């Protein structure tokens, strides 16, 4: 049975964990996530010492290195505020794999405590902020790709679409095989480039077939992969992080 998750009331303050991909490639998406949270009257704390959750090393099997990196992140959240992450992949790492990574170590208790405070951004906006959205944009069709980590590891297949459903002018269209992986998979795209390419090719074809000229996702790994494929082919389909899309159309 899937346990029912109980969400807390909207807090005064949260920690924002931006993730390394957002930091390096999509900082606007991170800032837009922060703006959405601040608009709800929440004070956002962005620990400047944050770097990366350690997932690339973790999935590559280099757990000693991943543990050292993750241990440094555990120090970032001394208060008891929720930790909001604009990525299902990094969120899943921190919520699910930190407890595994630190089991039996001196950091076990702290890792479990931090894991219990992790929320993916769309999850937090929907279930904790009960976000209301006033769409000021033009009528538009949009497709959404929910990352596999958000969908399966964090059980958040519905949070992104539920937020988009609150946008008056947005028509969410579902691409064929929407639940299938886009082929990013972190180091997978580098270790098995041809298989990964076949997967992202199918994903872009499915999105294109919906007729939408824009897709959103809540994970920058998928965004980099799918948008990179569209751009490589010279296709006029634009990708955007859902935080930027929501902020842009409602601010």
């Amino acid at each position, binding site marked *: *049975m899937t346990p029912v998750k109980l969400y807390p009331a909207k807090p005064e303050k949260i920690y*924002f964990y*931006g993730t*390394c991909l*957002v*930091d*390096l*490639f999509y*900082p*606007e998406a*991170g*800032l*837009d996530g922060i*703006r959405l949270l601040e608009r709800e009257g929440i004070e956002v704390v*962005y620990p*400047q*010492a*944050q*770097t990366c959750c*350690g997932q690339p*090393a*973790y999935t*590559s*099997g*280099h*757990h000693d*290195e991943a543990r050292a*990196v993750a241990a*440094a992140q555990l120090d970032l959240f001394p208060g008891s505020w929720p930790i909001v992450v604009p990525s299902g992949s990094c969120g899943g790492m921190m919520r699910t794999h930190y407890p595994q990574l630190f089991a039996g170590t001196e950091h076990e208790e702290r890792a479990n405590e931090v894991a219990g405070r992790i929320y993916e951004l769309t999850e937090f906006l929907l279930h904790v902020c009960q976000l209301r959205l006033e769409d000021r944009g033009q009528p538009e069709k949009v497709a959404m790709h929910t990352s*596999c*980590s958000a*969908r*399966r590891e964090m059980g958040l297949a519905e949070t992104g679409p539920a937020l988009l459903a609150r946008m008056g002018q947005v028509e969410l269209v579902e691409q064929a095989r929407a*639940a*299938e*992986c886009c*082929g*990013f*998979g*972190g180091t*997978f*795209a*580098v270790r*098995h*480039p*041809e*298989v*990964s*390419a*076949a*997967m*992202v*090719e199918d994903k872009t074809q499915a999105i294109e077939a919906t007729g939408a000229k824009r897709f959103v996702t809540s994970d920058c790994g998928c965004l*980099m992969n799918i*948008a*990179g*494929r569209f*751009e*490589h082919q010279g296709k006029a389909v634009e990708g955007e992080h859902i935080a930027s899309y929501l902020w842009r159309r409602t*601010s």
Partner: protein
Amino acid sequence: MSASEVQTFTPREFHRQAHDALGNPQIRANFRKAMDGLMAKRRDVFSDWDLETLRELGANIRLRALAKLPDLLERLEANCQANGIQVHWAENGDEACRIIRGICERHGAKAVIKGKSMVSEEMHLNAHLEAAGIEALESDLGEYLVQLNEQTPSHIIMPAIHLNTDEISDIMHTRTGTERTRDVDTMTAAARAQLRERFMAADVGVSGVNFAVAETGTLCLVENEGNGRMTTAVPPVHIAVTGIEKVVEHLSDVPPLYALLTRSATGQHVTTYLNMISSPRKPGEHDGPNEVHLVLVDSGRSSIYQDDELLDTLRCIRCGACMNHCPVYTRVGGHTYGTTYPGPIGSILMPHMMGLEATKDLPTASSLCGACGEVCPVKIPIPDLLVRLRRESVGEGRGNVPGAGVKRSKKEVAVWKGFQWLATHPRGWRSSTAIAGKLQALMPSKLGPWTEYRTAPKPAKVSLHALVKRHQAGKFDEDGEERS
């Protein structure tokens, strides 16, 4: 592939084989179509079930069986023997082959008919028997076609899923003289007629086992074609061969596992046949074999059993749902893996059987999308086990998988140590992301394999760290526009 081409596959050549399969539109289309159909059937057949509760039950039955494995195997042996079934133990595939050949030779057998058995594929039984002058013929339709085409199965439930109607027609025509047709019923009827004679003439029938029930000494065999019943009932000798992990404790454990197996595998509520074999022919009975043997094969399983994480691999009931739902398997097909068990279950099982040296590309052949773990009817945490084997590959695991450490390279260790240093030194991190942004124009537009198919991502001019600092210093007005 035409019937005349014989191809061999090995896990050592995963990349080359994946390249070939990806470039073969026939293979791509055959698998995509078949897997889409199987996924849809599974989804429909479970739609009115509380699937999570059933999976939990299935997982618990298998966990309980594994927790008591040594005891259950002894009880299985005792109860089988009490029923008149002769039990043999084999440490590996070669020993199992020798046992089976020995039984055949004692009976002067020249012709063996086989029901579907992946364990017999695992130990290359057919080749072993043929070398001893004993002909082994597959009677499962898919296995029959694969054997005619001198191939190996590309899927554990649907061995010939890589072939389409035209290819099958071609094989049937070339190898058996069947008239070319696109009519599936005509081809099935032809194969049925060809096989019927062989059942009658066979000296020994060899089958697999889906569940071996310890408390009753019963061998359960799940199938659709009736070939399993023919194999186990017509020839005078029946030899069942299976892995030691297939044992369950109670007869009442079978219905939930059976419900999960048929629905997960082919989307069926029930299969056409569920055979429950509990003894040879008894005095006064009119049919059934005079002798029934059970060969229990270890082949690395007891070594997997010693590790409390890897142990979960042994829960598997061989439904194939993980491959049906795997985006990698769907693209490259089963042969690409070059192993008896392909797809996600193969990638966590085969390293134990063949060693990580031969199979080092399999644990990484996954985007860790989690689809396999999500559909597994006994809740094997396949993605976690793939990561565990990646750890073993790079020498950071427990070192108890054959070939552990094979992928450890100084270069890769240096890369991850460098990553560790950077990610644990926030100042260094911030200045390096700032530098990456400033040097944007100098970034290579080619990033190895990534940019063959995608545009390279460009580091932002200003990192989120810096953007947030500006933001918090009030450099943005309420609409998010930067103040001049």
